[in-house]
C-alpha cells in the first residue's frame, strides 16, 4: 500500500515537468507582443511595449525562457501573477483554502444527494418520483452554471433578499477580518476558532448560493450514473440470490445492491472533487468568490503565463493526490481490489 502511494507521489514532478514544457511550449506560438499584452492596460502603456518585451526577455529563445522559469520554480518561486497582482505561490496559498471550503460544502451534499436520489430513482423505476428525477437530471445537464447562478442570485438575493449577494463577507465584516487569526485558511473554521460566530455564519451564508448552483449543475450526472448502476445491480444474480435467501428488501438494497453500485461513483466523486478543487471557474466568477477558479479565469483571459503555469502545477498535484485517494477507497469498498 505504502509502495503504491509513494509511486503515485513520484509521478507528481514528472507530470509537472511534462505539463510545464507543454504549456511554455504552447505559449511560444504567441508573439512576444501577445505575451506582453497582460502588462498593458492602456494605449499609453502600449507605447512602452518594446521596453516591456525587452525587460521580461519575451523575445528570448524557448530553452532560455523555459530554463528561466524552471530555475525560479525549483527555487520555490512560481513568478508573479498579473491576474492577482501577487506572487503565484501567495495567490495559491490565499485562494486554495477558500476553494477547499467551498468544495467541502459542495461535494458532500452533491454526493449524498446524488446517491440517495439515484437509488430512489432506481427503486421506483418509471414511477412518478423516477420521472420527476429524470426531468431534474435533464435540467441539471442542460442548464449552464452561469444561468443557474444568476437565476439564484436574482431570486434569493435581489428579489427575496434571503441570502447575501456576491463576495465572501458582508461589507462591515470585511473590516473585522484583520483581527481574525488564521489557523486553517478556511474562513468559517478560523472565524469559529476565534470565537467570531457572526463572521463564520456570514461566510457560510455567502457560500450557500454558489454551493447550491454547483449542487444543481453537478448532481445530475452522478444521479444518472447511480440510477443506472442501481438498476443493473438490482437485476444481477447476487441480488436475486440474496432476495431468494429471504433477506429483508432494505438490507438487499443497501448492503448488496447499493454497495456495488457505488464503485463507479467513487471514480466520479474523484473527478468531481478534482474539478471543484481546481476551482469552479464560472460559479466563483459570478459570485465574486475569491477562490482559485476566479483567479484562473482572469489569468486565462489575460494570458497570464505565470498564473496559468502555477495553476497547471497545482492541478497536477490535485489530480495525482485525489486519484490516489480514489484508488485506495476502491480497495476499501471492493475487497477484490486490494493492493497487497
Amino acid at each position, binding site marked *: 500500500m505504502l509502495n503504491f502511494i509513494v509511486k503515485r507521489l513520484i509521478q507528481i514532478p514528472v507530470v509537472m515537468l511534462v505539463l510545464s514544457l507543454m504549456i511554455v511550449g504552447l505559449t511560444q506560438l504567441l508573439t512576444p507582443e501577445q505575451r506582453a499584452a497582460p502588462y498593458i492596460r492602456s*494605449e499609453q502603456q502600449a507605447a512602452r511595449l518594446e521596453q516591456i518585451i525587452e525587460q521580461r526577455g519575451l523575445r528570448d529563445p524557448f530553452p532560455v525562457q523555459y530554463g528561466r522559469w524552471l530555475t525560479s520554480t525549483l527555487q520555490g518561486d512560481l513568478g508573479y501573477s498579473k491576474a492577482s497582482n501577487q506572487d503565484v505561490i501567495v495567490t495559491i496559498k490565499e485562494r486554495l483554502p477558500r476553494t477547499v471550503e467551498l468544495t467541502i460544502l459542495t461535494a458532500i451534499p452533491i454526493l449524498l444527494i446524488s446517491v440517495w436520489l439515484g437509488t430512489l430513482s432506481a427503486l421506483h423505476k418509471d414511477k412518478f418520483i423516477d420521472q420527476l428525477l429524470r426531468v431534474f437530471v435533464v435540467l441539471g445537464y442542460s442548464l449552464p452554471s452561469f444561468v443557474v447562478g444568476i437565476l439564484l442570485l436574482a431570486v434569493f438575493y435581489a428579489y427575496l433578499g*434571503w441570502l447575501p449577494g*456576491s463576495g465572501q463577507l*458582508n461589507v*462591515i465584516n470585511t473590516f473585522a477580518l484583520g483581527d481574525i487569526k488564521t489557523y486553517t485558511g478556511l474562513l468559517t473554521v478560523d472565524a469559529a476558532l476565534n470565537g467570531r460566530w457572526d463572521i463564520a455564519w*456570514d461566510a457560510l451564508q455567502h457560500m450557500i448560493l454558489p454551493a447550491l448552483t454547483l449542487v444543481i449543475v453537478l448532481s445530475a450526472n452522478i444521479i444518472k450514473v447511480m440510477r443506472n448502476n442501481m438498476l443493473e445491480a438490482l437485476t444481477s444474480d447476487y441480488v436475486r440470490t440474496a432476495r431468494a435467501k429471504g433477506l429483508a428488501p432494505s438490507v438487499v438494497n443497501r448492503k448488496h445492491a447499493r454497495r456495488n453500485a457505488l464503485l463507479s461513483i467513487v471514480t466520479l466523486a474523484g473527478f468531481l472533487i478534482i474539478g471543484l478543487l481546481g476551482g469552479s471557474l464560472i460559479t466563483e466568477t459570478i459570485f465574486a468568490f475569491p477562490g482559485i477558479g476566479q483567479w484562473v479565469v*482572469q489569468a486565462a483571459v489575460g494570458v497570464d503565463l505565470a498564473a496559468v503555469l502555477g495553476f497547471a502545477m497545482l492541478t497536477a498535484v490535485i489530480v495525482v493526490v485525489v486519484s490516489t485517494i480514489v484508488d485506495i477507497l476502491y480497495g476499501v469498498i471492493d475487497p477484490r481490489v486490494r493492493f497487497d
Partner: protein
Amino acid sequence: MKKVAALATLLTLTSALAAAPKDTLVYQSSSDIPTLDPGVTYDTASGGVVENLYETLVTYSGASLSKLEPLLATKWTISNGGKTYTFDLRKGVKFHSGNAMTCADAEYSFERNLVTNSAESGNWFLAESLLGTGANADDDKTITWARIDKAVECNNAGQLVFTLPAVDPAFLAKLAFSGQSVVDSKHAAGLGEWNGKEATWKDWVGKDLTNSKLSQNPSGTGAYKLVRKDSNTLLATAFDGYWGKKPAIKNVVIQKVSELAARQQAFLRGDADLIDGGGRAVDEAQVKGKAGVDWIDNLSNTVAQAFFMNQNIKNPALLGSGKLDGRGIPATFFKDANVRRAFSYAFDYDKYIQDVQKGKGKQRTMLLPEIFGGYDAKVSKYTYDKAKAEAFFKRAYGGQLWKNGFTLTANYRQGSEPSQKAMEILKANVEALNPKFRINIQAKQWSEMLKDSKDGKEAMTIMGWAPDYADPDNFMYTFYSSNGYYNPRLNWKDTQIDKWLEQARSTVNNTERNRLYSLVGKKAFEQAPYILMPAGIGYIFMRDNLVGVSASNYNPMISFSATGTFWKELSKK
C-alpha cells in the same frame, strides 16, 4: 414547510443588515487594482485608490482642467524663463506611518520616479520634462545620477526646486498626476525600497514596482489610509492625522465583482453605492430611473478617437494588387489628400451618434476634447455629404481612382462593437458611391493590432487616446506631430503643423498656445489626416443618498471616475 419558513426568517434577519452603512462607501468594480505604489501607478483602477492615499504637490481646482491649485505645496514660483519651479511645501503634514512630511520626502519621490522610470509606469513624461528624454538610465546612457539629482533638489529654505532643461508648459499639469505623489521616504527605505542614495540608484533603474513592498504597505499623506487589500477587496479608512478637513465618509470598501448582473443587483438593493456599469445602452435600460438611483448625464469625455488613414502602408498583405487597378491599393493610397477628404465626407457622423452612442454623442472639430484649453469650436467639421465625397474621389489620383476603383482592407479591434459599427457605416457609404469601391473589414486581436499599427502595417484602423495629464499638448502632439506617438501609424507629416506644435511646446503663454492649436486644427481639417469619431457623452450613476457628486465638480482627470472626485469630498445622507 415550517422548517423552510424558519430558515428563511433566520436568513432574512441576518442578511437584512447587508446594506452599505452611512459612514461607509461601497464601490463594486469590474477591474482589479494592480498597484498602490505611486511610482508605477498608470491605470485608473490603481490611480483611483492612490490619489486618495497619497497626495500630489498640486491638484485640479474643482471641475477645471486648466486651473491648478496647491495641495501638498502651498505656493510656487516660476523663474529662469520658465525653467525653474520653486515650491513651498505645506507644514504640519503627517504620513500614515506617523512620520512628518519634509522636503526630503518630496525630493526622494521625484528622484525615485526618475531613477526607476519602468516601462509600466507613466514616469516617462516626468522624465521628458526634467531630463529631456522619456527614457531611463538603462535605455539612455547619458542619464547620470548628477542629472537626476540636479533636476529636483531641496534648497536651504526647505523649498523644493525643479530645474528643467527646457520650457515645458505642461509641467505643472504633470505634477497633478497621481503617479507623482509624495511618498514617505523613511517608511519606504525601511521596507527595503530604494534608500534614495547615489550608491544604490543603478540597482533600481527600470525596476517594475507594481508589487513593491511600498505597494503592499503604503504610507501617504492622503485623507485615507489603507486597512487591508486582498484579492477581491480593498479597505481604507479615514486617516486621523490628516492635515486637511476630516472626511465625512469613514470607511471605503472596493470590492471586485466581475459579473455585471451581480453588481447591478447589489447596487439596486443598496448594498453598493457605486458600481461599474455595462455601457450606456445597458445602464440606461437596467439602472437609470430605478428607485434610489441618481443619474448624472452630459459629462465631459476626455477620450479622442479617430480612423487612422496610413499614408505608407508597410504590409503587402493588405494591399491586394498593390496598384490602383480596382483589386487593391498602393501603399501610399492615403497620401492624396483628396482620398482622405472623400473618406471624411463619406462617414455618417449622425448615424454613428444615433446607432452607437444612442444619440448621446457629438462631433468635435479637432482631436482634442473640448474641455481642454486650445480647443477651437470654430474650426470646420466634416459632415456626411455624398456629393462632396464623390467630388473628392473623382479628383483623387487625377480621376484614376474613380475610374478604376479600389479594394481596401481595414482592421478593427476585436470585440470593440463601436469600432465595428463605425467601420460598417463607412464601408456602406463608400461602396454606395461607386460599384468599383470595395472595403473589406476584419476583426483583429488587440495585441496584434498594437504591434502592426506601430509598425505602420495597418491601412486603416480606429484608435483613441486618453490624457495622461491635462494639457492639450498630450493630445495635439500625440496625434498631429510627425514626432508624435501616433505618427508611425499614420506616416503623415506637415512641416507647418510640426512647427506650430513645437512652438506651442516651448511657450508658457496660454493665449499664444491656444492660437497655435487653433491653427493646427484648421490645417488638420484641410489636410484630413484622420476621420474624427464623434465623442461619446459621459454619465455616472450612484445611489441617491450619496452626496458630493455633481456635474459641477466632476473632474475627468480624477482617476476615481465613478464620481470624478476624491473620496474625501463625498458624504452620505
